[in-house]
């Protein structure tokens, strides 16, 4: 990573942190409803991988912890926040909510609420890309606990069988809600689980964005060069509860403290200060600017945006005026 890139990367990770913290507040203020899964602690994962990939060109799919992945693809943070507010200007027009952020224009293929659901979808997207001769790849970000779904195994087999251009990124934060990985999973090291399918894999520190970037570069190059799927395990930690309704009571304070010492943002910040790329004041200014942008542009946009209208409740259920619904009548549009 070039020094200029590193500075931007720091800024983007700090933005991700502040964005999510602001979501937390908005939830407490009851501006956001439903389930809300936040990303603080894991920023280097999406950031590092997307640095190595081609955002907006490569296709991304993930679970419910999806705001930052969408923004990394190029989604407008204003539209993401508006979605969380349930507004018509939201990325899914207020119909989806936090767990279902979509921005197809930027190849963000969505957040899905069913654990393990995106695995085969990601492989399917890769199949399509391969058929079309595209140089884009499919990237599937999911958690560690998702690997216990049948879809994980079924998809790994198919992805290798058909050598599909798909990168599986496992953000291993050691927990599936309140259950620690060793209580749910026979083999703790997730990257080992794909060896039975002949898929190359690596496990790296997910808190150091430069390490993530380097590992992701190898992974992305492998997949883009037509060699088939790759599995990248990133060791990470989420600071907050699984969702807003989770108190985090099951985690040892020592463990939390240990991980907070390896904060991905602080890690890069201190490294850049040490290298003389930035000063602490630069960082503080950056933070102030970000907080201002979030408050005065993003939140403001979400607050000021209109609600969807009830008369459009049944819009988007099925295609409108599809000519083949009545192929022999004049009602068709062809």
């Amino acid at each position, binding site marked *: 990573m070039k020094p200029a890139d590193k500075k931007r990367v720091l800024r983007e990770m700090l933005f991700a942190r502040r964005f999510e913290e602001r979501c937390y507040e908005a939830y407490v203020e009851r501006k956001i*409803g*439903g389930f809300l899964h936040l990303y603080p602690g894991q920023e280097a994962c999406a950031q590092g991988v997307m640095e190595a990939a081609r955002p907006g060109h490569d296709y991304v799919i993930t679970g419910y912890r999806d705001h930052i992945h969408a923004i990394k693809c190029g989604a407008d943070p204003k539209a993401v926040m508006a979605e969380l507010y349930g507004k018509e200007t939201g990325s899914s027009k207020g119909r989806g*909510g*936090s767990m279902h952020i979509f921005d197809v224009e930027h190849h963000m293929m969505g957040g899905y609420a069913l654990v393990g659901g995106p695995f085969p979808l990601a492989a399917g997207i890769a199949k399509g890309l391969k058929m079309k001769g595209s140089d884009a790849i499919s990237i599937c970000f999911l958690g560690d606990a998702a690997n216990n*779904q049948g879809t994980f195994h079924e998809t790994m087999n198919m992805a290798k069988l058909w050598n599909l251009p798909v990168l599986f990124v496992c953000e291993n934060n050691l927990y599936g809600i*309140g259950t620690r990985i060793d209580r749910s999973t026979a083999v703790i090291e997730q990257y080992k689980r794909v060896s039975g399918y002949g898929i190359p894999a690596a496990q790296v520190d997910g808190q150091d964005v430069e390490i993530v970037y380097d590992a992701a570069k190898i992974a992305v190059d492998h997949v883009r060069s037509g060699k088939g799927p790759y599995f990248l395990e990133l060791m990470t930690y989420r600071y907050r509860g699984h969702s807003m309704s989770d108190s985090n009571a099951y985690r040892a304070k020592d463990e939390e403290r240990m991980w907070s010492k390896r904060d991905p943002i602080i890690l890069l910040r201190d490294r850049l200060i040490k290298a003389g790329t930035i000063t602490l004041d630069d960082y503080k200014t950056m933070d102030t600017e970000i907080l201002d942008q979030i408050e005065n542009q993003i939140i403001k946009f979400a607050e000021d945006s209109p609600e969807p209208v009830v008369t459009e409740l049944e819009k988007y*259920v099925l295609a409108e005026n599809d000519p083949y619904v009545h192929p022999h009548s004049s009602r068709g549009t062809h």
Partner: protein
Amino acid sequence: MATMMYWEALQRAHDEELARDPLVIVMGEDIGVAGGTYKATKGLYDKYGPERIMDTPISENGFTGLGIGASFIGIRPIIELMSVNFAWLAMDQIFNSAAKVRYMSGGQLTAPVVIRSPGGTAHQLGAQHSARMEKVFMGVAGLRVVTPSNARQAYGLLKSAVRCDDPVFIYEHELMYNMKSDVPDGEYFHPLEGSEIARAGRDITLFGYNISVHWCLQAAEILAAQHGIDCEVVDLFSLSPLDRAGIKASVSKTHRALIAEEAEAAVGVGSEVMAIINEECFFELDAAPVRVSAKNVPIPYNHTLEKAAVPSSKDIVHAVLKMLDHSQHPTSRDTSTSLHVGKS
């Protein structure tokens, strides 16, 4: 009688059955150490240990199948599916294994498994966390489907389901776990078949189940107080089989029927109850039965749209007023001008 919350009633039923029979086990995601998403298994892990209170991986089809397999040789698993939305992943095992094994084996094998899961729309949980799947479960032979509308039923239905030799699906509701009601102090087994009259009345029968029973009761209050209409509310706590005799008896008394359901109308509880009315007591009717059901949309996230998608007691009130107005029309068989008069 003690007043307790729906979740407390479930917890008590689990606890009693675990204490009584060492072959009873509980399985599910976060049901052990964490005590269950809705606390239905709170404290049981500490009391009965990890062999019997099993925190499972997120492998719904896998652990449901494992529980069903254990039930083949006499284990009595109570499986919690964290949300009915996740039950879709376990459908293969529920339908292809649990529901069919007795029949396929000519009665040699049975799957005495209990599967509990909450469904329904809660507060802005979005399209993939707002499934109402009662219609799916009740449409398959070999599976019992019950759905408690209060803490007493929650307790008694679970107790009976554990003892029953059939697979029983218990459809709970995300919004009802903190709802309080009286539960008998002594052991109580609720019947797995039948229906209950939650409110007796003469003018019209409102059929509900689970949360829609409460909408019906609220509507009945409003209709009585503001319009002098006397509604009977029938609680269909058994969705499979439906209580044909109970449906017939109530409709034969009131001559009018409305079915309130939280799901979309198509292929649902309402259509099934209407079919039963047609088959059992068509000539008792003074008006065409109506359904009050959800709009035919995936549930939207936006609060206002979500409210518009799902019915409420208000919709029931409107539907009843419309039906009674209509049935007063001169072409109706009911020639009386009073809303209170049933069949002449």
